């Protein structure tokens, strides 16, 4: 399995390393276009823009974005492309761009998604592209079988003077800061808000970490620390590569991620676990078990508290590389806390857990978002799993946890995560975040 595992890792690394340019893609008159994500402040939907008299035909009006007044440019009219007949009062997709010191909005047919590419694959535009004047096209790139024209928004909408006479010069309204911002991120100023949304976006792309209510508290605090820390060292606040994202997320992970648990952590956990009522067998679900260090530590801890009942742990991970070594995990005694030594046996290649512990755990290559075919459990141990799912999947998973947990059962999530659900009572202790399912 290790050779297969290595190859998977290599392939994944190659894939991740090669992405160094991201663009927001959208369609205009059935063709695909992209805009450098660093120029995009945000995307949204809006309708009914305030008409501005005497403006160029492609200026649809101005729009109030949480206090900022933004000119709205209709790219279809600007480029003489056929626009779909607009039904009044329908929302239109718009992209808010951040150019020099201006914000400007463009209206497009449909926003597609964020596409990551390697900038080396961007090819110069060919004169026959036609529909849009070639000097507005930065290049063309292929991704998953689709061709995207990358627009040079600075040339199209920018305010630099004296370049081309026939350049289209929309009238720009400076991005004015409103006196009182509404919405959740009220306290932040303009540029900081941009960094905030870009960092959260970069974390999605580089580390598939999704900022949501589950981890927003941590993210906001970390973002402030990060800004200060980066500001001091003079580095870019934004996350440029995978390594930056990993560094940003380093404090996120719960204690002893990817290692055996210390004696101290196990003692604290035992206090929480002691309140668990079990009748008969103890059933546990451990999604996202990784290489199994967590699962084995948990199995040993449970064995100490509940020596009698049969314990069964379903340990799942969708990373084949990590989980493939878990069932026969071999390790050195120097990484093992002394108290766990009693649960191990000396094997040919190093220490291994004994048969009682290993028989208690069932490692499965499994995606937790798929059907989970096992009975209701007493304990769910899911540290730092939720944050790495899309928001939709996060909600789905919380419901799944609720469904799979017996009343009175305990749900452990990451130290920097929180959930709000009427069926879960927060009984966190210290840094250990744990919820009890309310018995109804």
């Amino acid at each position, binding site marked *: *399995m290790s050779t*297969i595992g290595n190859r*998977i890792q290599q*392939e994944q690394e190659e894939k991740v390393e090669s992405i160094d340019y991201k663009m927001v893609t959208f369609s205009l008159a059935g063709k695909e276009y992209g805009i450098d994500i660093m120029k995009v402040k945000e995307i949204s939907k809006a309708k009914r823009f305030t008409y501005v008299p005497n403006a160029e035909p492609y200026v649809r009006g101005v729009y109030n974005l949480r206090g900022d007044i933004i000119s709205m440019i209709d790219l279809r009219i600007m480029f003489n492309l056929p626009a779909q007949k607009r039904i009044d009062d329908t929302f239109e997709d718009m992209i808010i761009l951040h150019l020099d010191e201006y914000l400007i909005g463009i209206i497009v047919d449909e926003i597609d998604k964020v596409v990551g590419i390697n900038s080396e694959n961007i090819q110069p535009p060919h004169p026959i592209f036609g529909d849009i004047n070639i000097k507005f096209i930065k290049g063309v790139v292929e991704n998953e079988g689709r061709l995207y024209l990358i627009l040079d928004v600075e040339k199209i909408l920018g305010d630099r003077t004296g370049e081309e006479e026939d350049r289209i010069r929309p009238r720009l309204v400076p991005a004015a800061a409103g006196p009182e911002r509404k919405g959740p991120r009220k306290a932040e100023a303009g540029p900081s808000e941009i960094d905030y949304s870009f960092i959260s976006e970069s974390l999605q792309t580089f580390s598939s970490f999704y900022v949501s209510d589950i981890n927003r508290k941590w993210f906001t605090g970390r973002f402030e620390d990060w800004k200060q820390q980066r500001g001091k060292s003079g580095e870019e606040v934004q996350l440029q590569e995978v390594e930056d994202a990993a560094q940003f997320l380093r404090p996120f992970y719960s204690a002893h991620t990817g290692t055996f648990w210390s004696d101290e952590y196990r003692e604290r956990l035992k206090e929480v676990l002691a309140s668990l009522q079990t009748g008969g067998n103890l059933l546990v679900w451990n999604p996202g078990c990784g290489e199994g260090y967590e699962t084995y530590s948990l199995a040993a801890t449970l064995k100490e508290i509940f020596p009698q009942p049969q314990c069964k742990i379903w340990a799942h991970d*969708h990373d*084949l590389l990590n*989980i*493939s070594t*878990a*069932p026969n995990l071999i390790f050195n005694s120097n990484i093992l806390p002394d108290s766990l030594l009693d649960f191990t046996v000396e094997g040919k290649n190093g220490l291994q857990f004994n048969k009682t512990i290993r028989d208690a755990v*069932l*490692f*499965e*290559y*499994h*995606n937790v978002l*798929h*059907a989970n*075919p*096992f*009975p209701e459990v007493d304990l769910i141990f899911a540290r730092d799993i939720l944050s790495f799912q899309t928001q939709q999947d996060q909600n789905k998973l919380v419901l799944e946890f609720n469904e799979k947990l017996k009343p009175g059962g305990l749900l452990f999530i990451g130290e920097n995560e929180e959930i709000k659900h009427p069926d879960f009572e927060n009984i966190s202790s210290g840094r250990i975040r744990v919820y009890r399912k309310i018995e109804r």
Partner: protein
Amino acid sequence: MRVEYINPFVEAAFNVLREVLSDEVKRGELFLKSTSQPVLGVAAIVGLTGDVEGRVLFDMKRETALAIASEMNGEEISEMNDLAKATISELANMITGQAVTKLHDLGFKFDLTPPAIITGDNMEVSNSGVEALIVPVELGKGKIEINVAVRERA
């Protein structure tokens, strides 16, 4: 899908295919799937019972199936006749048999059902409630997708 089950299936598929075909055998990336997916045209299905319940499906295009049958029989076969079907079911039987033997050595007890062949266009297979492990195998003659859907007997 229990981790211990994965390797025997992958290894058995490679050993057998390498043995019966004088052709390069390459592995694609393994992945999990729970939604229904199209069947390429010819599917051989082998059921599993014992410690687990489930089935293994070998899925390939008609042309791939014919090329494999021709090679294994040492004669040109140009239509999906009884011989071609028997050959493909035998291939499925050999691979699953070898995987189950390996699993037996590891202490897991499985039994097989006789293989069945299903052919036709526009077919789909769905794994209600069980996710399937997909092992894509690239041959010079085309692609075989081995779709393993098993679950522990509760």
